[in-house]
């Protein structure tokens, strides 16, 4: 449908190698004006490197690019922006203590006076259906609103090509709809969009064309409108996918609770964080409770309160009738808890320590790796090797530093480390964040296997599809409050979206503090 439009960007035979790995090999593809073009691929497939070269952050080793027919070789993002390329990164670069207009001005070469800029922001945000008040502090904005700041910063440059890296991972379904409307409007006006995502349904509904990368090479292109999500995923990983298997969902009536949280209130230790307010739920052995919510609504705080990093009154958190609210992380592990925080590098794992040391980090207690205060390093090494093997962690060995692993591989290591400790209670925040499709399926299967083996599982995730796939019961965190858990069966995406927006029964009159 867009094939008759003029070519905007042509990438020809680009190769980029880093020490020890070829990130892109002989990559060629083209984007036409006004086209929404998907870039699909697993983690480590080379998507980021490719867009960084287009945006001038990385220089290709060989190959060339043409921009509207002329040679194009940006050596800095400034040059890419001058040509008309804009990029919205997955991780926002915003200052929380500055307001929207100031943040936008910081990203511009020659910012106009603040008043003019604020008026322009209002005008652009209205024109593209992205409501945003230029005077608000970024620290007070939701993740979706922060993304709008980044998008408007790009739109003010009047780009010809807008690159979006995993833009929907932090949005509610309703916010995704708003974003897609904006993107379609932009495309209709002639702006090309390079859209990176691993959410195949989105790509199918939004994109006109797709280029699929695997291990640094282009393995094909597809028309996302006519391909099924399954076909796209299989092209991406080069294998046949199997959805996680589990026994039929049971009705979780009033059995004994392996984890019982009652009236949990806790101030947030994180700046600009969300305090937990009266969170109540119970999970039985074998049950998976899925907790959804847009980032920044108390997910991190809930994990900290369950892991023991934030301590509360003893009665607020109980395990099999025992009060554990006052216990620290090591003591909770002793009685059967395992936890996996969202932030892998720096929280779940120490970046500069080896995988052996990181295996010991949480595995020491339950694997009996400490004797009289002395660490059994050979046994810790065996534990690390076993995780690497069982969870297919791609690494030269267990001696490498955690920061040397790709995000997906480190996540496999962290999840594997926790699930290999025969736990009774599992708490995981964002189990498959940034993990490729094949590994995500493996992680979900491993979680379900632990549930089958009798563990009570709490999965906190922003990926709704994931929660609906593995959870028995479903609840939403919103402004630090948790909705009453409901069985997943019978829930529709629309109902969930409303729960996430705060329109669930008990919360109608709630004023956010």
């Amino acid at each position, binding site marked *: 449908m867009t094939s008759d439009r003029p070519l905007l960007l042509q990438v020809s035979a680009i190769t980029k190698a880093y020490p020890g790995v070829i990130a892109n090999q002989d990559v060629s593809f083209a984007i036409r004006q006004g086209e929404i073009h998907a870039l699909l691929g697993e983690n480590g497939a080379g998507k980021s490197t490719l867009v960084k070269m287009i945006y001038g952050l990385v220089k290709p080793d060989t190959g060339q690019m043409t921009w509207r027919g002329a040679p194009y070789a940006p*050596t800095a993002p400034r040059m890419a922006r001058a040509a008309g390329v804009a990029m919205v990164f997955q991780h926002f670069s915003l200052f929380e203590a500055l307001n929207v207009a100031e943040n936008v001005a910081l990203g511009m070469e020659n910012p106009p006076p603040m008043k003019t800029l604020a008026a322009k922001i209002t005008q652009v945000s209205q024109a593209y259906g992205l409501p945003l008040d230029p005077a608000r502090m970024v620290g007070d904005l939701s993740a979706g609103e922060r993304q709008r700041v980044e998008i408007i910063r790009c739109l003010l440059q009047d780009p010809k090509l807008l690159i979006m890296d995993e833009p929907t991972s932090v949005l509610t379904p309703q916010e995704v709809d708003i974003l897609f409307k904006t993107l379609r409007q932009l495309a209709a006006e002639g702006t090309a969009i390079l859209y990176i995502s691993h959410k195949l349904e989105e790509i199918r509904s939004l994109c006109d064309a797709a280029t699929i990368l695997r291990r640094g090479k282009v393995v094909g292109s597809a028309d996302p409108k006519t391909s099924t999500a399954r076909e796209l995923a299989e092209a991406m990983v080069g294998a046949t996918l199997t959805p996680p298997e589990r026994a039929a969902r049971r009705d979780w009536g009033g059995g004994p609770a392996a984890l019982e949280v009652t009236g949990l209130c806790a101030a947030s230790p994180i700046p600009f964080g969300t305090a937990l307010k009266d969170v109540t739920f119970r999970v039985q052995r074998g049950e998976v409770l899925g907790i959804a919510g847009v980032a920044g609504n108390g997910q991190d705080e809930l994990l900290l309160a369950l*892991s*023991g*990093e934030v301590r509360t009154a003893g009665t607020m958190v109980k395990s099999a009738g025992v009060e554990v609210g006052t216990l*620290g*992380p*090591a*003591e909770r*592990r002793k009685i059967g808890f395992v*936890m996996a*925080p969202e*932030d892998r590098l*720096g*929280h*779940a*794992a*120490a*970046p*500069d*320590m080896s995988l052996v*040391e990181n295996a*010991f*980090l*949480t595995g*020491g*207690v339950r694997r009996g790796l*400490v004797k009289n*205060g*002395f*660490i059994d*390093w050979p046994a810790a090494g065996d534990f690390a090797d076993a995780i690497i093997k069982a969870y297919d962690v791609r690494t030269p060995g267990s001696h*490498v*530093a955690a*920061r*040397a692993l790709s995000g997906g591989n480190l996540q496999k290591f962290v999840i594997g480390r926790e699930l290999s400790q025969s736990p009774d209670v599992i708490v995981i925040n964002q189990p498959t964040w940034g993990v490729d499709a094949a590994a995500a399926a493996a992680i979900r299967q491993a979680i379900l296997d632990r549930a089958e083996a009798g563990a009570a599982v709490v999965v906190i995730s922003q990926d709704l599809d994931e929660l609906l796939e593995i959870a028995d019961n479903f609840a939403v965190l919103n402004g630090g409050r948790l909705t009453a858990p409901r069985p997943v069966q019978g829930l529709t995406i629309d109902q969930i979206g409303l729960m996430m927006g705060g329109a669930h029964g008990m919360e109608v009159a709630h004023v956010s503090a």
Partner: protein
Amino acid sequence: MFRLEKRPNPSTFWLYATPIVAVILTMIFGGLLFAAMGTNPFTVIRTIFWDPVFGEFAFYLRGQLLVKAGPLILIALGLSLGFRAGIWNIGAEGQYIMGAICGAAVGLAVYPTESRLIFIPMIAAGALGGWAWAMIPAILKTRFNTNEILVSLMLVYVAQTILAKAATGFLKNPEGMGFPGSRNFSSYPAAANPELIAGSGLHWGGVAAIVIGALAYVLLARHIIGFQIKLAGQAPRAARFHGVNPNKLVVLCMGLSGAMAGLAGLFEVTGPAGQISIDFNVGYGFTAIIVAFLGRLNPVGIILAGLIMALTYVGGEMASTNLGLPSAAIQVFQGMLLFFLLGVDVLTNFRLRMTGGK
């Protein structure tokens, strides 16, 4: 232009090469400094680094090396534990003074006993004095979140005032004809810390430094507390996730470093210094900070670094007496060593890249 690029794995080569490169750079730029002051840089460098070990008076100066290195190593070992955990005890000088005062006070209180056993409670009192002095910044930090760098540093000056009071008041030698200073331990053998092998400079402080060095090595390599110390320094959030209580770690590390500084003070006052005097402290507590970093916060490295630093002390004194260099020039020279060490240290985690254009 050059650009720094983060290495995926810390470089083992630069981890060990950094101290050597730093020493060489210090020699070059120190040499320039000495040349600018009108002395022959080669003579100065030789006086500092060569003569104490192989020169004319080496028979005497070699012993001085161990005398100086002992307290430096002992204090630096303690400091390194805290530094690894990201706990910055800058006040070892004060803890050193308080250890000396407390230890000496116990010995002097029972003067003139002839039982050698008195040395044991003196050692305990020395360690305790340093420990207690370090507990002040530790408790203020854990209770009120004060900055341990500032508090521990300021307490050095309080300790110096107490030292002056001790030397002229409560520990003053009653038979000292009114001169400031305590009784001299060299004439109080039961409580003294003598040279163990004549001419070697080795006293009980040196023995303690080596024993504690070995213990620190085992603690860091094998013990869970060593793991928690390293973890807290490298990834504080991961440490809390592991189950480290940051406050307990502050109290532990400050306490250990204070106790070791106190021990060093006790061994010094009963040995080489001989008495509590107004100018008893000579900056070992501050120089030990350089020693800890020069030794890569590693016990074996610290023992080597302590010896090198002792060399600059002994050689520096030689240079100032023989060549007439001001002692400040020697201190600048020692400071340069830390400066270059920290500068070159960047290469352990980053590599230099040439970038085209601007």
